[in-house]
């Protein structure tokens, strides 16, 4: 029983990390394309950008819903406490999603596209901003009492470091969005996004360097973790690998490769994700409450593995299948509609 109470929360930590990663990667490029549409020069381009997402945005966003549901079931204490503490960023994100989601349908039906284009772009930006602040706040730590209940104040999530995290996340989304568009488009549009990808690669790198360097100084709880043996070696390798990946990415952009930039960007996301995960683990409400303290009853965790865990390959399969169905470049006419 003891080992179960140790093992099951770890399994769920990994499953939730997987859901979150799939979300960040898939809705990441999705939101990135939305943010990029704000800078788009004309209506036709914005139309193509939205068309490139119309059949997938919803499935991409569902990974977050799945992550939320999983967190609720597997770590109810963390679900309540974190969301309670992040009331405003979550709300900002949710309103971003609302505008963005309805923009897809309303734009199609509307004769005045401009407003819905803007709602799509601004909604994407707002959603990403809310997520960035949420991430920053979790890294900084959430103020709780010894039972794990939130005792901080409304604006705890707002600080200079969390602004930095939020801006970097937005840049990361713009980067993955740009490389996705490089892959999915042709001609002038593709040229534009080779450029935006390069700019975003640099801004993301600068943000990441700032965060990496400042983390041990700003976040007390992370400091101990970072310099702990043998983790210190991993934490030393991650930034080096990161710089190498950015270099590869920039090279592939210079060589005008079509798919490689997207792949390099995904690898960058994987690396950052592992880094963040190792800083946080085994805490689920940093800096105090571990996954073992916040976990649901072992029987719940087992039932959830049976009901959700075994569906993961199935879900991955049919998500992949729809990407296969809609493979190829996006044109102005969309996917044949």
């Amino acid at each position: 029983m003891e080992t179960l109470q140790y093992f099951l929360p770890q399994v769920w930590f990994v499953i939730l990390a997987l859901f979150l990663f799939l979300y960040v990667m898939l809705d990441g490029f999705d939101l990135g394309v939305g943010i990029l549409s704000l800078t788009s020069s004309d209506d036709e381009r914005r139309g193509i950008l939205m068309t490139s997402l119309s059949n997938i945005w919803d499935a991409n966003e569902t990974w977050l819903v799945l992550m939320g549901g999983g967190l609720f079931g597997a770590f109810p204490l963390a679900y309540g406490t974190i969301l309670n503490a992040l009331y405003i960023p979550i709300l900002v994100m949710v309103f971003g999603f609302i505008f963005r989601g309805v923009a897809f349908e309303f734009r199609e039906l509307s004769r005045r596209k401009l407003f819905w284009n803007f709602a799509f772009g601004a909604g994407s930006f707002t959603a990403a901003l809310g997520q960035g602040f949420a991430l920053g706040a979790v890294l900084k730590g959430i103020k709780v009492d010894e039972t794990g209940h939130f005792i901080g104040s409304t604006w705890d999530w707002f600080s200079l470091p969390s602004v930095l995290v939020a801006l970097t996340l937005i840049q990361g989304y713009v980067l993955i969005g740009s490389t996705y568009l490089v892959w999915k488009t042709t001609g002038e549009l593709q040229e534009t996004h080779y450029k935006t990808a390069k700019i975003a690669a640099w801004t993301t790198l600068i943000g990441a360097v700032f965060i990496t360097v400042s983390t041990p100084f700003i976040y007390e709880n992370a400091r101990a973790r970072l310099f702990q043996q043998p983790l210190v070696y991993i934490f030393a390798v991650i930034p080096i690998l990161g710089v190498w990946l950015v270099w590869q990415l920039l090279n592939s952009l210079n060589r005008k490769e079509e798919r490689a930039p997207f792949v390099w960007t995904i690898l960058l996301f994987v690396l950052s994700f592992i880094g963040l995960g190792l800083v946080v683990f085994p805490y689920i409400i940093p800096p105090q409450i571990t996954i073992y303290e916040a976990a649901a009853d072992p029987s719940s965790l087992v039932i959830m593995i049976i009901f959700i865990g075994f569906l993961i390959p199935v879900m991955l399969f049919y998500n992949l299948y729809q990407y296969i169905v809609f493979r190829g470049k996006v044109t102005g006419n969309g996917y044949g509609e």
Partner: protein
Amino acid sequence: MEFLSDSVVLSRMQFALTAIFHMLWPVLTTGMGIYLVIVEGIWLKTKNPDYYLHARFWSKFYVLNFGIGVATGIPMEFQFGTNWAPFSEAVGNFFGSVIGFEASWAFMLEAAFLGIMLFGWERVNPAIHYLSTILVAVGANLSTVWILTANSWMQTPAGGELVDGKFIVHDYFQAILNPFMVNSVLHMFFATLETSLFVIGGISAWYILQQRHAEFFAKSLKIALAAAVAVAPLQIYIGHLSGEQVYHYQPTKLAAMEAQWNSTPAGQPADWSLLAIPNEKAEKNDWEITIPNALGYILEFKQNLSEPVRGLKEWKASDRPHMIGLIYYAFRTMIGIGFFFAGLMLLSTLQWLRGKLAATNISQQRWLMRAWVLAAPLGYIAVESGWIVRCVGRQPWTLYGQIRTVDSASQLPASNVLVSLSSFAVVYTILFITAMYFGSRIIRTGPNLELPIPGTEVTKPAVDTTPGEFVPDERPVEAQQ
């Protein structure tokens, strides 16, 4: 305006507002998903291009409703954490898992195949496309199953017990199959289907009245009617079973639904109140019309009750639901609409059997068609009323008899909730008006009968009917392309 500084009341208002608004959209998509499976199936079987065009036309409403449904559903999930953290923590073991099951079993399935259903006509073969349509409908309806499972469990918590304020589950299957579960799922399943059928029938009747594509829309009206023949009476029956369960498991809710202040002991007849003005302060009805002895027949099909009907006065004011009038009239509204649907279905079926609904003469049935147009929004009102009875009637509990609503809410500054509540109110009002506007535009534009049929090389219009009404471009000349 005391409530403006009470974050619990504000959180309740926010949940009610977002739930009432969110529900409007999936109600249509879950039911219409099944309708789309039917028309695409008929098309594949008969090869009659009309049915393909039906699938394309009605899926425009599907996607409009789906987008708003998703956009407004996400706040629902997050609200459990943001506004109801103590509740989430206490019941996460079971309730949270079920929310996770909904996402993985239902939502992901629907989301992944919707793209293929909408945009994949030319990209996959007809069998795969039909499978996608079926999976979208299955996904939507599995959502109903899981959400209603979670909500039923809040009404009749089973399968475990509260230990130190946390619900520990002993038997998952008992919790999932809690006493309310099966009937609640069926009641909601039929509600979504019935609402969609009468929306589709109502819009079709409107075209018939306008003499636009009468032949085309007589088809969709008849499919809706044929399905309603089965659904409308079944819904009344399931509704009756649900009422009986409330009588057994939630006596405070039953008393509120019937505005019964005084108890009626077992073995005695009870009057049924038809209309009343409940007065919560005086604990009586200020005015009412009753039907003598009818409550026994309604609950048990006999005059004398075998169990007592307990009146509201048996409980302290703090242990019974408030807003008795709202619960009482919401319940009567739902039932009234249910019977109206059944009546309209019977009348229409009679006319159909008499040959009065043929494409050539259906537009002569002006009053019947007007009744269908009138019926189009009623399903929504019935569903919302039913949920008001269900959830306002459950008060003052979130987990019936176990966890109170006041103990379930997060400790938040009232100003935060006030800001979020007002933002939701403003944004949702705009969304509602916009959706109505675009929905009516889809109707005014009408079906595109010139869409190429997949798998054929047809270039001329598949069906010869009157073209859609001309909608002038109202934009300034510069903006027209």
